[in-house]
């Protein structure tokens, strides 16, 4: 039977009315993206900010004074000083201090000899990431302070290698710049999968599907009529997210908007495909919501290089990441935002996302019930 455009448009119009009148779809399509963006734009950051540390100066000298000043003046630390380690230990135990730097009584004597370390760093290893950051910052500060001191004393100190880091693509090294594009992918996954899964499950739950299936509607008409409005909704939400990212969060965008629109459309279709597939296997809205959170949102979050580094995961989990479309989309989005058009990379990502979408659709078309069982 040839698909009939009147039926498809009729169904699409009905879905549109339902979207417009149902506050929950507006919340998912507009409120959720903005919340997530604000969360990742303002709330979550991996940039270091003022760690509270303690500083023990056992024997104040001009050198300790100068080192203390360089610690305090750095933008990384909030420093609390004391004369004895015992004074600060309790605060470290209580979690108020993330680390303690101890300048021994013989600091001035040992400082320029270069063979032994005149200072000790104690860090709270509970949060390994923070601990490592504090250690390396203190170490870097120490190295630069030492160089300054030697130079001002007229000693020509020449370390074997001088590091002059240059950060490409994200010169401010701001985590916002890669978190915000990444969150756009998460948002689109949610809209595609969650919203679609919910609306189809709702039809079954309310008994309207039963009436729908006794009309002459065909499988393709049903799928197209249902998907089209959500595709549009998802793309609107995408524009909203990207606009917010660029104008509000001032994330640079160096690629082409046309490419962005194209790959977003392909990603949207994969996401909708997943949503439809979930809806065909869920008997009610509650289960549909649970499955879509578990199978769309969480994988998109964990396996997309968005927050968690895939390269540092066990090999088995790395394999899992290959079937998560969000992984490819995040990579493309970060490229488009921060690098620009990299045709080979984007083409590959798009192809893989399209393929995953095709698999979900194939499954959905096969699984879509035109009867009650």
């Amino acid at each position: 039977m040839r698909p009939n455009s009147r039926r498809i448009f009729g169904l699409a119009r009905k879905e549109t009315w339902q979207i417009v009148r149902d506050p929950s779809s507006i919340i998912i399509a507009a409120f959720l993206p903005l919340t997530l963006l604000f969360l990742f734009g303002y709330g979550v950051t991996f940039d270091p900010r003022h760690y509270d540390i303690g500083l023990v100066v056992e024997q104040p000298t001009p050198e300790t004074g100068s080192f203390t000043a360089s610690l305090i003046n750095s933008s990384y630390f909030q420093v609390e000083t004391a004369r004895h380690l015992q004074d600060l230990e309790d605060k470290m135990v209580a979690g108020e201090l993330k680390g303690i730097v101890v300048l021994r009584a013989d600091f001035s004597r040992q400082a320029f000899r270069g063979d032994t370390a005149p200072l000790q760093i104690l860090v709270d290893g509970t949060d390994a990431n923070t601990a490592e950051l504090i250690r390396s910052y203190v170490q870097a500060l120490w190295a630069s302070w030492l160089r300054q001191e030697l130079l001002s004393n007229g000693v020509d100190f020449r370390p074997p290698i001088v590091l002059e880091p240059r950060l490409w693509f994200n010169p401010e090294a701001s985590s916002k710049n890669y978190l915000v594009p990444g969150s756009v992918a998460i948002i689109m996954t949610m809209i595609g999968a969650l919203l679609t899964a919910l609306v189809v499950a709702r039809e079954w739950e309310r008994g309207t599907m039963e009436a729908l299936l006794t009309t002459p509607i065909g499988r393709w008409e049903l799928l197209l009529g249902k998907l089209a409005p959500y595709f549009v909704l998802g793309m609107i939400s995408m524009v909203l997210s990207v606009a917010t990212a660029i104008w509000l969060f001032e994330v640079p965008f160096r690629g082409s908007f046309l490419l962005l629109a194209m790959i977003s459309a392909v990603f949207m279709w994969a996401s909708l495909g997943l949503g439809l597939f979930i809806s065909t296997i869920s008997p009610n809205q509650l289960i549909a919501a649970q499955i879509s959170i578990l199978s769309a949102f969480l994988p998109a979050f964990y396996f997309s290089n968005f927050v968690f580094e895939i390269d540092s995961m066990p090999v088995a989990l790395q394999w899992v990441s290959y079937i998560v479309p969000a992984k490819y989309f995040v990579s493309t989005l970060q490229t488009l935002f921060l690098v620009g058009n990299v045709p080979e990379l984007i083409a590959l990502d798009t192809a893989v996302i399209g393929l995953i979408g095709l698999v979900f659709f194939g499954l959905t078309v096969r699984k879509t019930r035109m009867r009650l069982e």
Partner: protein
Amino acid sequence: MTKPLIDIRGVSKRFGAAMAPAVKGLSTTIGPGKITGLVGPDGSGKTTLLRMMAGLLLPDEGTISVGGHDTRESAASLRRDIAYMPQRFGLYEDLSVLENLRLYADLRDLSKSERENRFKLLLRFTGLEAFTGRLAGRLSGGMKQKLGLACALVTTPKLLLLDEPSVGVDPISRKELWRMTLELAGQGIGIVWSTAYLDEAEKCTDVLLMSGGKLLYQGAPANLTKRVEGQTFAIRNIQTDRRAVLANLMGYDHILDGDIRGHNVHFLVETGGASPLLLDQLGAGKGAHVVATEPRFEDAFIALLGGAASGRSPFMDRSERPHNGDDTVIDAAALTRKFGDFVAADQVSFQVNRGQVFGLIGPNGAGKSTTFKMLCGLLKPTSGTARVAGLDLRNAPSMVRGRIGYMAQGFSLYGDLSVQQNLDFFAGVYGLSGKHAKMAVARMIEIFALQDYLTTRSIELSLGYKRRLALACSVMHEPDILFLDEPTSGVDPKTRREFWGHINALVTRGVTIIVTTHFLDEAEYCDRVALINLGKIIAAGEPDTLKAEVRTAELSNPSLEDAFIAIIERAAQEVAA
């Protein structure tokens, strides 16, 4: 003989290997241009058969063809010829009346030019012209049903399938639906109407009577009714408690069925078992006499199914404290409840004495449930007072609330818990523990014959068993007062008889019952009823008195439903005048 519209050949359907088949080896034909009633007890396979006719389910064995289209082979052409209205009408509640119509017109590919006339016709036909812009979710039950019908009829089908179209719909809307359906049949459309209401079945041209997935009878309902001619009687002028009389009567083996209709007790005897009853043994008092009555379709139905559950309710035999006295137990004084501008209950006043059955009757949305909730202390009245056992339940101590039993409308048990777990849970809720709880639960299992279902998840029970379990959960703590909200809505007569057998037994022991219902046969069991319409009590009294009020020359033996419709129409005229 015209060609049959539906041809069903050797059809069987089973859900899951462990379950009994829903339909087994059924063959029949259904002709065009008439209304065929599909009746049978709850769980007899009505809905399954209807869904197979609609092509929504495929038979495991056998074939069904509609208008020459096989439901398996040519589903697409089948769907152009049929219209189907599912149990909840298949409407989109967040779409307006017109938008719902437009959607179904699109789905059935009705051209723009034809559409205007068709919509006009359908809206006039259903009386929905004034409500085209209203969201379907805001319509009353009766209006939803009409809109569901209009949506099914956007193109004229050859076959119209209606699955329990009148469940949850008030008598006036039911009457109108019937009028509309008759008109459609007159146009040559074949109609299959599945129903649990036998008064509807009685009006059909033909009925298919199913039980346990098999066809027990097919033909004109009058022919079936004729089979029990001479077997139906009534005991009139009963001077004692008619509930006790009925219970005694049901103790006889040759009595197939008995029920209370107003002041009288009707009964059905076995074929050839018309032996004269010894009235004094029934304890009906001097002056009581037995007269032969016209059989009704319901009598024939129950006879065909082998009679109602006989015997006495085990509640009858228990020798616990009877709750005696004539004091007023429930007192509603000018109860009023407003929701914004809308007055859901307006100055509702009535009293119920101990050991009485009181019925609140009215169409959907009339204010029955609102009144009920105020009595139970679930809803705060805007003005007026509700006193139960002399106390306002909203701030009564839990000890007082423990004297109340409440059976909510619909399914209010824990669907994922087994029958046993639900019973244990409610025993705990009512403060029974240890030996007391065990005894109460065991007694409920025995009384309601739940033994075979203890480990079944309660959501999987049939409707009749769900209602039994719900009743068991609300009476296990032996309440003095029992609130029943639409207790047997959608349940077949056999199950309803059994249900009321238990209720009657409780009443005989002094329990006070207050019941809401839109199902008028149920109201016959009440000592007194109050008719509620648009939030107000428009009539109150004994069922027989209300019936007598509307007796006219052409309506010599009005049913409570006739009385109800007449009184509401009269009230509407007064408002208009």
